[in-house]
């Protein structure tokens, strides 16, 4: 109230109304706080606090995502761990077979044949394990969504004449074609015009084959054309075409190649083609914290190897040695190679375990961080219930007091006393 000497009824009521309004306003403010349970209901309630809460929420969003990334990585690793465990069990079985084959008498060829077949079956099992997927995604193919050893079940393979050195370039003209037959059906492909290194040319030919052929450069540097698994088992013959020469084939029809590249008993057997790795060497990573990633992947070559040095080629060799009763090889190179393959798998499992442990630590850190962030957000934005309740009581009491006072202060005037 003012300290005016003269007070009029209107001036008094003006001040009282203003006081009442103020009192009601603070009451409404506390009511909103109590109703929403939040200290900050709009940015203007606490601009600096709002800014902090928004920044904290952004971080909170990141860390809850890290937490999801981590658990996705853990599931991936669990799948890998189980798969590696199965592979080790299978390889141990092979070891037993090798030992019994090496110690068997030379005449016991029936049981050797059985062991040989068993090893081949285990090879198929390992190929199946190599194609294990997590969430529809092959876990041993790096960043490519592809079966890592697609040609293991592929068909026949035909290689051209020894190609030029890897550094030379081969130029193809417009509409250069290659005609070939798969299982007796004539097919044709057109190599896109351009300049290629031999390996680039292989990629181009394969791309132009509509999925029928896998083209690769074999160990002697020649272009090898292999029928894919989808054209499985088909015989392959190059008939001709104006690109045939450039690709290292004669323009007259070649011999018909039959059999399968993945079958050690076949004339087409070529482990370098059959077990060539089709995945990528790029690691699969999960972001687990700002600027921090964990590599959760094991690529095919790291575990199963590739081409002639793959575990599959080893099992092919073992199965052949068993079939042929080659006890010297069995007890010598085969056994030691098998032992080192088992070691590779065991190590890989150990590595996966180490990454898993790192992820577990990351998971703990992420959830601690989330809890800390939530705590900070709550401190900034949640209303202190006791405080709000007290404030609300006080504001409500003071509003009522203001109302009562106003009622008393709007005093009767002299008029009531004049008669």
């Amino acid at each position, binding site marked *: 109230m003012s300290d005016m000497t003269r007070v009029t009824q209107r*001036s008094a009521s003006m001040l009282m109304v*203003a006081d009442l309004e103020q009192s009601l306003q603070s009451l409404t403010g506390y009511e909103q706080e109590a109703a929403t349970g939040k200290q900050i209901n709009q940015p203007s309630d606490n601009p600096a606090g709002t800014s902090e809460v928004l920044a904290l929420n952004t971080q909170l969003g990141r860390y809850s995502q890290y937490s999801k990334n981590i658990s996705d990585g853990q599931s991936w690793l669990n799948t890998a761990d189980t798969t590696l465990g199965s592979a080790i069990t299978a390889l141990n079985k092979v070891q037993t077979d090798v030992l019994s084959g090496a110690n068997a008498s030379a005449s016991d060829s029936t049981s050797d044949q059985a062991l040989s077949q068993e090893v081949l079956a285990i090879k198929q099992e390992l190929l199946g394990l190599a194609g294990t997927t997590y969430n529809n995604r092959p876990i041993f193919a790096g960043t490519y969504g592809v079966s890592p050893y697609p040609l293991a079940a592929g068909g026949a393979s035909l290689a051209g004449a020894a190609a030029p050195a890897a550094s030379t370039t081969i130029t193809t003209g417009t509409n250069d074609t290659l005609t070939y037959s798969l299982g007796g059906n004539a097919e044709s492909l057109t190599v896109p015009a351009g300049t290629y290194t031999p390996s680039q040319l292989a990629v181009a030919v394969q791309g132009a084959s509509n999925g029928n052929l896998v083209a690769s450069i074999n160990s002697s540097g020649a272009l090898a054309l292999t029928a894919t698994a989808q054209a499985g088992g088909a015989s392959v013959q190059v008939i001709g075409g104006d690109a045939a020469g450039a690709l290292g084939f004669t323009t007259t029809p070649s011999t018909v190649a039959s059999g399968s590249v993945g079958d050690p008993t076949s004339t087409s057997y070529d482990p370098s083609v059959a077990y060539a790795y089709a995945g990528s060497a790029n690691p699969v990573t999960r972001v687990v914290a700002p600027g921090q990633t964990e590599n959760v992947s094991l690529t095919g070559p790291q575990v199963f190897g590739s081409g002639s040095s793959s575990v599959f080629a080893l099992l092919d060799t073992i199965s052949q040695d068993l079939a042929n009763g080659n006890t010297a090889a069995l007890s010598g190179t085969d056994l030691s190679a098998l032992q080192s393959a088992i070691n590779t798998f065991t190590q890989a499992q150990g590595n996966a375990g180490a990454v898993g442990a790192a992820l577990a630590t990351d998971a703990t850190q992420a959830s601690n961080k989330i809890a800390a962030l939530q705590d900070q957000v709550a401190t900034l934005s949640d209303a202190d219930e006791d405080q709000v309740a007290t404030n609300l009581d006080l504001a409500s009491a003071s509003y009522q007091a203001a109302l009562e006072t106003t009622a008393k202060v709007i005093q009767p005037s002299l*008029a009531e006393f004049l008669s």
Partner: protein
Amino acid sequence: VGLSGLEADQVGLDTVGQNVANASTQGYVDESVDLGAIGSVQHVGFDQSAFDEPGDGVQVEGIRRLDNTYLQAQSYAAQGDQGMLSAQQSGLQAIQQNFPEPSGNGISTELTQYWQDWSTLANDPSDSATRSTLVEDAGSLTSSLNQTSSALSTLSQQTVQDIQSTLSEVNQDASQIASLNLSISQGTGSGADVNEMEDQRDQLVSQLSNQLGVNVSYNSDGSVNVESGGEALVSGHNSQQLSLSTAGPPYSLVWSDDQTTYQPSSGALAGMLDVVNNYVPNYQNGLDQVAQSLMGSVNHAMSTGYDLNGNQGVPFFLGTGAADIEVNPAIAADPSEIAAAATPTPAGSSATNQDGSVAAEVGELPNSQTATMLEPAGGWAAGGSASSWTGATTTTTGTEADVAYNQLVSGIGQATSSVNNQYSAQQTVTTNVNSALQSATGVNTDEELTNMVLYQNAYDASAKFITTVQETLQSLIAMVNG
């Protein structure tokens, strides 16, 4: 002599009646009766006696308005400031309502979800459901930006309409003040009572001061001049009109006399002009920065990546700012075109690309304060078509979208909170000034009733005087007759 007393008391009682009746009338100024003694007639001629004679009674010299121009001017100024702050406050509060932060229903939550979608895509880059989720969430983020931007534009348009209707009130008030000025100066000249007209006029000036900060000066003939920003809105019985400039923002007011422009610094009009000229454009600009940061950073990442079909990335967002940002329709139609991978699969390979390193990079953007951004060829204004994102683009470093949004929201909160505080401080000032003015110029009914008793007693006394004179005369006549 006795009659003059009766008449004077009658006028006094009438004035009391008028005051009491208007005790609650807004703008009514307390009136009092000025009484003066009538001097005795000077005797001219031989009988210039040395003794004093009693006077010839009392007369009403005028009914005076007990106004106070000093407090009145303070009240006008306070109302001007309050009018401005009130308009700023309601503008800012309306702006702030479009940013429901930090409730979890605002754009910040959608941003967080959007970044998380990118990280999820990095974990499973070939999954079409994950890609579709990203496209959907990005779509709701862009439509929130679109809606907020258009809400700000609508607010600006509404405020322009408010300015126009306020201007027509101001113009009407100004011409009414001018015509009252004319009547008052004529009345003053002829000696008529102009108090009520003055009350009415001051009331209009008071209204005006709320809408447009004004200075008031008083002329000797009782009229007032009202000026704002150095130019006379009302000068005696002339007034001029204000209109809103046709183009804007920035908008300004235009004087009808000389067509000069004017930016008032007080009054509701000043506050509303502030909303359309400063607040809304600033925050639109802030929102555009958020949208541009989103577009620039993601499109830059896309330009370095490859999609599931082995093609180099196309821009993820198209647009020029918050008003028109959208998910590239090509990507919305075919989410496999999102370039999540850093390297393509080899040509001819049947492998799907499971490389999500570009998506992972995008997901990590909110960890930094800045972002590398691609600017469309020809600048932001050209960003509406996919082709402007290839070719002669430039790469710049800009503020990361969450940071830009955070700055925008806390800026709005800061401005609103500051105006809220100023407004409540000003409210106290205005109430105090107006109450002081009321105290000085308003009616105190106790005072009036006391005056009433005073006039009543005086009337009784005058009447008694007349009776006494009459009795004295009758006694004299009886004596003469007797």
